[in-house]
């Protein structure tokens, strides 16, 4: 009981579910379904996030959901999220305009371990909106480009009109800092590039497995196949980082929705080192 008593007194007056007020600063339409929102926290205090972390975003009456942060750390009280309209809350968010209010809790979870990948060649592999949290890390990495080796980004989407951050990607590539390989799932009349799932981009790639870290973010179905391809390239599980998507209602390791065995993804993830969870049942 003494543990409980001290916990109560230490947190008297603190409400973990209480969000901060924020306003939409700018909306950019990226595709038919995805928009990029620049958010400003009303209290003008920093969000203080790491690449790979997420926030709980809410609109009163439409509920709350976990949303990954798409901008790199260090932009004060401003940050960006990129949201696909798929449900009640995300559709409501898409109906908002500049200056409208939203509510933010977080950041939550563990981000990408920047210190562990510094100095290495980086292989980014994104599927669909997996590019959203990855963009935060890519931009961080590009800010300190000289401390990394060769950088490749493999990006798979269903069709050409679903490609996110097109202009940004050509900037990244244009500066010669990163080589980008995009593939679409099925042939499309307007598409002249590579066709096939994202793993089909892997075989021709020259990779030094002794100094490469792979960062993988995509839909649940993608991981198994990408991990096998990375295995073919002899990249160790220790050097592979993946971000797992799960349903979340609290972000505090309580509500149970994101639980995989004894792991709470909202606390111990969403970013995991593959070697830590490769044999965790139901993870991948």
């Amino acid at each position, binding site marked *: *009981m003494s*543990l*409980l*008593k001290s*916990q*109560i007194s*230490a*947190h*008297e007056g*603190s*409400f*973990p*579910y*209480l*969000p901060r*007020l924020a306003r939409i600063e700018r909306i950019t339409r990226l595709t038919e379904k995805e928009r990029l929102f620049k958010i400003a926290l009303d209290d003008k205090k920093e969000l203080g996030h790491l690449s790979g972390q997420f926030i709980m975003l*809410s609109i*009163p*009456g*439409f*509920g*709350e*959901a976990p949303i990954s942060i798409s901008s790199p750390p260090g932009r004060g009280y401003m940050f960006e999220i990129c949201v696909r309209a*798929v*449900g009640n809350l*995300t559709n409501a968010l898409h109906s908002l305009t500049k*200056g409208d*209010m939203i*509510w933010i809790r977080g950041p939550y979870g563990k981000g990408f371990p920047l210190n562990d990948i510094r100095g290495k060649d980086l292989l980014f592999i994104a599927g669909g909106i997996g590019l959203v949290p990855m963009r935060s890390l890519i931009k961080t990495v590009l800010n300190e480009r000289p401390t990394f080796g060769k950088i490749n980004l493999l990006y798979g989407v269903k069709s050409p009109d679903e490609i996110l951050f097109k202009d940004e990607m050509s900037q990244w590539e244009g500066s010669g800092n990163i080589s980008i390989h995009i593939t679409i799932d099925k042939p499309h009349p307007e598409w002249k590039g590579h066709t096939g799932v994202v793993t089909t981009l892997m075989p021709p790639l020259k990779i030094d497995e002794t100094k490469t870290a792979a960062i993988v973010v995509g*839909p*649940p*179905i993608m991981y198994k196949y990408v991990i096998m391809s990375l295995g073919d390239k002899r990249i160790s599980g220790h050097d592979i980082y993946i971000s797992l*998507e*799960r*349903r979340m*209602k*609290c972000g*505090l*390791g*309580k*509500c*149970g*929705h994101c*639980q*995989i*065995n*004894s792991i*709470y993804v909202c*606390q111990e993830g969403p970013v995991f080192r593959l070697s830590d969870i490769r044999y965790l*049942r*139901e993870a991948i």
Partner: protein
Amino acid sequence: MEYRFLSKKGIALFVTGLLKEFKVYGPVKKDGFSVYGEIASPSDLNLLHTPTHLSPKQYLFPPRETLLKFRNNNSENKTSIEPVAEAHDQVLFGIHPCDIHAIRLLDRVFAYGTPDSNYLKRRDKTLIIGIDCIPDKHCFCRSVNTMTVESGFDLFINDIGAGFVIEIGTQRGKELLSKYSKTRKATIREISKVADFKKKKIESFVASLNAEASTLPLIYSGSYNSPVWEKIGKICYGCGSCNLVCPTCYCFDVRDDINLNTAETERYRVWDGCLLEDFAKVAGGHNFRKTRAERLRHRFNRKFQYQVDKFGGLFCVGCGRCSRTCLVNINIAEVTNELIEESNKRP
């Protein structure tokens, strides 16, 4: 441990006294079931020694609980927000040892990491008065080491026929007992009758697990691919009743309710259940536990393996409520014994 003797008649006086200061919740009869309910007078109490259908977790972790209130001022384009953590002084009266163990587990869960202020505030205002019990055919607390409690209560009542022998758990419990009842020090003879009751209790068990409690996490871990999951998955309705009645199931959903004039929104949490189909489904449509077999396996493992890793202690307290409630008679003790038997056959 200090023991006091209270006469049979004295208990009514004690409850009447408690009602002056606290909301009192205890076992009552409702629609033929023994459940926990609010007591208005001592005669409402139905201090049976058999298990209650519902657990007392609802008084610490309500089925529906407001977390926040948003208020719009549309003319000024402003919204105010107010956190809500409702709690009142309350006594949980007549709580059985398994449920006291369950509350101790919930305490650990809600205090872990970022503490849950709503639960902790309510817990802080709660007194627990336990009572010893006699198992029915579903109880197997003896097999999971929750048959007795040494702490986690303010007072603990032992019925010895001629009266009650009351164990003092906390100073606060002791003060309330002396404030609202006439007790005296229990005699050695009276205390020895407590042991007689415990003997009768032990003799009354029908259900039991065929392995030591400490071996259960490993047995469950080795049973991931057992055919048992498919077998019970075929008959399970996925109704989540087991989640509702379980004293250690604490998963919840967070939702918003907007009032008709849109001026006020309530954010609240409600009990959720991992047996329900959408529990692990994400916005893109992927369901991480699509089948009932997978969801049952998850729930059983939460009780015997997953939460043990995280919080220590089995999360099944052997109350048998899920078995008692299950519409298709999935029986947690029988399922566990099947897994134990399979595990014994493995090389």
